[in-house]
C-alpha cells in the first residue's frame, strides 16, 4: 500500500482470509460495496441484524469518503477480513481507505439529538453511527488520506 500515514495500532490479523474491493466514487457504489459485507457476513454465519449493522457502518464510511475526502484517484479502497476461532469470537473486519485530504479527527464535534433538533444541525452523525454499530473502530487520518478500521463480532 502506498499510504503509510494512517496506520492502525492493531496489527492486521495474520492469515485471516482477506478480500479487497475498490469502488469508484460514484452514486450508490456504497450499496454495491455492501454486497461484499453481506456475502462475508453470511460466510461466517453472522446473524442478519448484525450484518445489517455492518452494512450501514460501511455505507457511512463510504459516503464520507465520497463527500469529504476529495480523492485524486476517485476511488475508495475497502478490505474485508474474517477471523477469530470458529464458534468463539469470530469477527468481520472492514478497512475503508481513501487517499483524500484527510481531516482532524480530534476536531470533529460530537452530534446530539439536541443539536440536531434544536439547533437544526442535522448532519454530522456518520462517524457516531459507525462507532455505535461496530464493536471496535479506529480512525486514522492525515494528509495522505483516511483509514477507518472497524470490526464486528459475530
Amino acid at each position, binding site marked *: 500500500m502506498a499510504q503509510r500515514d494512517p496506520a492502525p495500532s492493531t496489527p492486521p490479523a495474520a492469515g485471516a482470509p482477506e478480500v479487497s474491493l475498490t469502488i469508484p466514487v460514484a452514486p450508490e457504489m456504497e*450499496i454495491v460495496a455492501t454486497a461484499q459485507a453481506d456475502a462475508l457476513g453470511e460466510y461466517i454465519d453472522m446473524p442478519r441484524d448484525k450484518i445489517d*449493522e455492518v452494512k450501514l457502518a460501511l455505507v457511512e464510511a463510504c459516503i464520507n469518503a465520497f463527500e469529504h475526502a476529495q480523492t485524486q484517484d476517485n476511488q475508495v479502497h475497502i478490505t474485508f477480513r474474517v477471523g477469530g476461532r470458529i464458534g468463539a469470537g469470530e469477527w468481520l473486519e472492514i478497512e475503508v481507505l481513501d487517499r483524500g485530504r484527510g481531516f482532524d479527527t480530534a476536531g470533529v464535534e460530537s452530534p*446530539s439529538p439536541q443539536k*440536531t433538533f434544536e439547533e437544526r444541525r442535522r448532519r454530522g452523525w456518520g462517524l457516531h453511527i459507525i462507532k455505535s454499530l461496530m464493536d471496535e473502530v479506529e480512525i486514522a487520518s492525515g494528509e495522505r488520506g483516511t483509514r477507518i478500521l472497524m470490526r464486528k463480532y459475530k
Partner: protein
Amino acid sequence: MSETCRVSVERRGDVAVFWTDGYINNQGGEEIAREAYSELDRGARALVMNLAKTRIVNSIGISILIEVLEKVMERKAVLAFCGLTPTIDKTFRIMGLAQYAAIYPTEEEALRAVGAAAPTARPQVTGPQ
C-alpha cells in the same frame, strides 16, 4: 439503478400512508420529503411511513426525514414510522428521531394509533427491493 428507493403513498381520510422500497439515501429521502410536503399541503394531519421494504437508511436520508419531521411538527401534524428493521430502529433512536416521532412495530398499530380509517388494499409497489 435498482437500489433507488421507490415511494408510494395512499390517502386514508386525513392520514397519508407511505411505503418505501429500497435504499433511503439523499435521493430517496428527498423523494419522501416531496411527497410528504405535498400531503401536508393537501391537509394531511398524520403521516404513517412503513419502511418494511427498506433495509438501509443512511445518515443523510435520516437527516432529511428529520427535516420532514420538523415540518410536520410545525404544522401540528404527526409522523409515525413502522416496519423498521432492528438496525434502522437503532439508528432512529441514536439520532433522536424516536424522541419526536412515534415508532410502531406494524402498520396496523401505527394506523390505529393515529386514528386512521381501516386500511384498504395496499397499492402495488413496483420495482425491486
